[in-house]
């Protein structure tokens, strides 16, 4: 076998390894029900859940509990199927958290009652609302 072939085979092998790990390590978008099923099946892999903060009738965010040392908090997230879930995040409350339109939590269930987020991504209301222009004119 020629050297070129050996190198070629090595490259293909590494490329395949890359593809396999990319698929294997890729996370997935779930809802809380499927995430809990995964946990029960013994799959502790971190997954993404997209949802919104729970709001009361007046549109205020409810269920936000900040720990006494202010370095962590829990909140209630409603996923796109309407399932409510208490989520723990081991970081201070991000500044515009309560204003966010939708929240992506990346993490996994610890027990049925609590979903632990390793990371939170927030989608904030778009920068330029029509009302802004109006209020700027006042």
């Amino acid at each position, binding site marked *: 076998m*020629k*050297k*070129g072939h050996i*190198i070629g085979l090595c*490259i293909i092998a*590494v*490329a395949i390894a*890359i*593809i396999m*790990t*990319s698929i294997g*390590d*890729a*996370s*997935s*978008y*779930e809802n809380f029900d499927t995430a809990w099923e995964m946990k029960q099946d013994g799959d502790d*892999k*971190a*997954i*993404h859940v*997209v949802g919104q903060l729970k709001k009361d009738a007046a549109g205020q965010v409810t269920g936000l509990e900040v*720990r*006494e*040392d*202010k*370095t*962590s908090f829990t909140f209630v997230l409603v996923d796109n199927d309407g399932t409510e879930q208490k989520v*723990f995040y*081991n*970081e*201070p*409350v991000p*500044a*515009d958290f309560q*204003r966010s339109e*939708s929240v*992506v939590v*990346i*993490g996994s269930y*610890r027990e049925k009652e609590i979903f632990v987020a*390793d*990371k939170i*991504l927030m*989608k*904030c*209301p*778009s*920068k*330029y609302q*029509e*009302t*802004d*222009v*109006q209020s*700027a*004119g006042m």
Partner: protein
Amino acid sequence: MINTFMGNLGHLMTIVAFVSALVTAYSYFQYFKASEIEKASWRRFSRFSFYIHAVSVVMIAFSLFEIIYNHRYEYFYAYSHSSKALPVHYMISSFWEGQEGAFILWAFWNVILGVILINTNKFWEGPVMLVFALVQAFLISMIMGVVIWDLKIGSSPFMLLRDATQAPIFQLQPDFVPEDGTGLNPLLQNIWMVIHPPTLFLGYASTLVPFAFLIGGLVTKRYSEWIRPALPWAIFSAMILGMGIIMGAYWAYVTLNFGGYWNWDPVENAVYVPWLIMVAAIHTMITFKKSATALKTSIVLVILSFILVLYATFLVRSGVLGDASVHSFTDLGLSGQLLIYMLFFLVIAVFLAARAWKHIPTSEKEADVYSREFWIFLGAMTLGLMSFQIILPTSIPAWNALVESFGGISNMAPPADPVEFYTKFQLWFAVVIALLTAVGQYFWWQKMDRKALKDALVTPYIISVLLSAAVIVLTKVYDWKYIIVVLAGMFTIVANSVILLRILRKSTFKLAGGSLAHIGLGMILIGIMFSSGYSDVISINMSGLTYSNSWEDEMNKEHVLLWINKPTQMKDYTVIYRGRQKKVVGVPEYVPSKILESTGKVNEALALEDYKDYFKKGDLVNIVLEENDYFKIDYMQNETLQFSLSPMSQFNEGMGGLISSPDSKIYLDKDLYTYVAAMNDSADPEWKEDENYEVAPGEQFHIADFVTYFDGAEVLKEIEGYELQEGDIAVKAKLRVLDYDVEKQLNPTFIIRNGQVGKLPVIDDELGLKVSLENILPEQNKFVFKVNQYQKDYVVMKAIVKPYINVLWIGTIIMLFGLTVAIVRRFDEFAKMRDKGLE
């Protein structure tokens, strides 16, 4: 009256630029095809047309900047990206904050490069400029803002606000102009954001040059000659793109608070990959110049680097990343256009390359293990695999979008922990690259066989092992993976330094580019290993208190809560939060916020106290961006102040809340990086219920937890900001409140006028107290104070030590310098050949 002239001018120039780009493309095509006799006139016309295009692009940029500079908020772009309080250098950032501005910047650099190419090339002008003109047509179309039937082509930055939004105010008042813009994103208000985007876009633009030479080579059937003129530009491109990436990383390090300089964010990855490929392309091109191999690989890599820049643009600017990235742009509806742009050049390049493939010279003989071609090829392949490993997972959102556009469902998400995921591979690729550069350089400069190689490498090998051992022992690197990184990095540095010395002794400095760049690479590798691998969070809660007695306590708390003035132990330091500060024009240090009172005008405040020699009580002072608060954090050791850091936060209503930036103490061997993750909001306090205290003068009592002395009262003749009339009685109580080592004077005042009682309470935001003098009981010699509490001021802070991060920065500077030396050398070679009339 609203201004429509500048917008119309800009829009007109956009259309002129688009049309002239197409005309230039057509006429350069004619020039290319024309017979020798007609060539001169076609060339004159083509150049004329390109210069018209160049002028119109400059005019587009001028119009847009004029709109921003003169605060013309009737235009959507100025309204949404700028504001009156911005200094001029941030107006420049406003220019490219929006996508349209970024496209203008890109087109502008292409024009500059085009003019340089016209004036430095003889033979290549036709085909190269044809490619340039086509690229320009695509770029300008992104900002055209023309609607043909239902098809929207481009998004114009010259839109009026009333056309861009449906705000009801414009129905009543079509000529309404907002007072002020919504401002520039505070994250971009940083000097690095003024220079990082132009550098990066020059990098983007410059990838076009080698690509254009390649296309020129393919259509003129000069399959190998294109390498010489393209090479200096390819190195230039790698240098500028690399510099842009590093500036972005540095910006992230000093501005963003994710705690580092690289986050494996899709936007970062998308730019990093074309750079890797460009670096690979440089190496194969240089090999080809020396030994006529690797031409096909070079062609593939040059095409890839250009297409990957377009792919990066597509990923970042089409909105396809969605919520996968912290800083992806909103969808302007350009995704289709961006896709066509990318596919157009991909198809052309692949078609031309495929047609020429069997005519491209290759060397038949197998590369020998003791030849440089073999090692360079291995290096290029490793860089290729590195890129592949990054671009594949980064493209997951694009993959999902693709599946969904065919009606399928794909719920794949990017890896949950990107840092761990990418490092797992990239670390080892980087080690391989480092070793290859060390060995490869020896092959480069002399003929090698087994014995010569052993002789050449044995000295650097021993030196680098000894040096590594010293580093490992002194800095306590005990992780086997990191030990290997140190060894590989050190080997690169030593081996290339030996080569460097040899070149300097025997030959000229001009040839030293390669070894310098590789020394830089070794330093970067070691710097990254230390600053990331041994990055140490020191803000671990050391109070020993557990709050909830559950599993939560087992999680690492990486933040500490600092109440104002309260010393808190944190690893080797005692830290104390000392309150908020502002930056004042003409004062070189930060000024405590509590002695400044806003006057209601933008960036203006009234001084409530003297401040050193800088200003007096009652002066009006100018604040540098009043939304910025700088939190003073004192770091103490052995009861003495070592230094203070002032991490920043900005509350910006228009931009959606709060943004914070770190501050670092920079040592030679490490950075101590500190940022504020959360803080007290004292804007609208909810006061707790009243507490009343009856105290005699001279007595000591407690307000909340504070030891307080009532030092007595005095009758006032005058009160600031209050007119005292004949017969009024005003009494000021003197309270001294102790908070740790700080003593505060609180003076609530009590006024009696015509039997009516008026109270002037004092509010202390830092202590979270409101104290008023409620009553005076002369017969008991007692004073009654009413106290409301809110909350003491606090910050939640994170502090990280990043060891040897300077090795990384110095390494990047050396690498960029090495690349610059290489550009000079390669351009000289090209210029010599050209002047001989050979090219």
